[in-house]
């Protein structure tokens, strides 16, 4: 079994390391539970690929020694119904991605649309989720030359992740499709359509 290790970060933060993305999600869920019940006081809980950052802790040293005696939680509780994102699989890099996977384009679409994803963590821009769920063999490299402008709603792949650009920005991910879903609207509650732990399905629109 793997024990948790917590690296001190500055004066009042800890970076807790785990062995896998699934463990990071489970630890994140457990820390949220503790904060909700009042046994953990912390300003930010930021999950990432293999870590959870706890920032703004009153007693980081005490928590670090407590965590050192804990097992990493194995699985996160199920996080409700999946969010469905309607997608036109019309991205300019779809053929490249299919070639990288060694399948026809129609099969690449089928693989992506039949996968249930989970938001592992957010970053890069407000509302941008790093979605995991594709088997490791479908990882793709970033584009050699990033685009100066990727449109809002672009569905894209890089490494093990799928992401949806919440707004137009530069980006180096492989674009496979487009959604009209609004990923981020700061006037909406909640502002982010996707947050860590959210399950996601992409539903194909039109001819595929």
């Amino acid at each position, binding site marked *: 079994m793997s024990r948790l290790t917590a*690296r*001190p*970060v*500055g*004066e009042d*933060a800890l*970076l807790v390391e785990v062995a896998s993305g699934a463990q990071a999600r489970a630890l994140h869920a457990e820390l949220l539970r503790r904060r909700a019940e009042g046994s953990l006081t912390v*300003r*930010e*809980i*930021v*999950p*990432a*690929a*293999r*870590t*959870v*950052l706890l*920032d*703004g802790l009153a007693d980081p040293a005490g928590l670090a020694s407590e965590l050192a005696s804990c097992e990493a939680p194995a699985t996160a509780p199920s996080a409700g119904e999946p969010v469905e994102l309607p997608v036109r699989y019309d991205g300019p890099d779809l053929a490249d991605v299919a070639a990288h996977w060694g399948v026809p384009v129609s099969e690449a679409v089928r693989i992506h649309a039949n996968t249930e994803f989970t938001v592992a*963590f*957010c*970053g*890069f*821009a*407000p*509302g*941008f989720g*790093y979605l995991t769920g594709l088997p490791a063999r479908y990882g793709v490299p970033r584009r050699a030359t990033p685009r100066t402008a990727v449109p809002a709603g672009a569905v894209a792949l890089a490494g093990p992740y799928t992401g949806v650009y919440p*707004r137009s920005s530069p980006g180096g991910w492989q674009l496979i499709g487009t959604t009209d879903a609004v990923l981020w609207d*700061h006037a909406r509650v909640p*502002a*982010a359509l996707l*947050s*860590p732990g959210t399950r996601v399905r992409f539903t194909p629109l039109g001819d595929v």
Partner: protein
Amino acid sequence: MTDRALAVVRAGALTTVQDRGRPGYAHLGVPRSGALDPRAAALVNRLAGNPADAAVLETTVNGCALRPRSTVTVAVGGAPCPVTVAGRPAAWGAPVTVSAGELLEVGTAVAGLRAYVAVSGGIAVEPVLGSRSRDLLSGLGPAPLTDGAVLPLGAPAGPPARVDAVPQPRPPAELVLRVTTGPRDDWFTADALRTLTTRTYRVSPASNRIGLRTEGPALERARDGELHSEGMVLGAVQVPPDGRPVVFLADHPTTGGYPVVAVVRAADLPAAAQAVPGTPVRFVAVRRR
């Protein structure tokens, strides 16, 4: 009839609305943002009779010029600079009355980078996720000021402070940043860690609200490969592939994939906000308290 508003006559190089930022949303990829020199922002608010979390203006290098539509109390602090009201010299670092229609000029900083302008009642633009701060990384909050813009003001909360002037720290001739090592110091050679804490760096002109970039000796990694993206904190000393440390300031990204060799103490970051390009920077290793 009062018209609680402020007309922007000269926006300056980069003037943004700032308050104490929007902490608590890092897990959604939202930077904390907020005034880069929070001590100066709190002080000018106190001088103008505002609560500490009222929104102020943060200028960059060459100040700004403003015309209130009703009589207000203002206070200018942070980077020292000339202040005039209707063409007459006025106090810096003290409450100043600007009558309706008079022009307040905040001049070019004589030292430091960022002046803070508090106006009685505070800048009352619509908050986004609980804050009026402009976040330049993700574009949340009110757009940077432009010539001709009009900003709403809130109702004054209390009388201005009854002081003539208060001491404020001078912008640093040398920026000394106390750091605790980690969390990824093990990604660097022992030589690199010695280099970081013994050699002198300089503030790079490429610095901004996202990070204080440095010029100086590159830090050599002890290992190849890529770090998985992980959560980032204010004051993180991140080392990109060119080896030059970057100190994360208020608009820093919430996650990042370059290793963080050390973290600057929060108390030393206001001085980093005022360090002009070329200022010598020393990182001093301290023990965790």
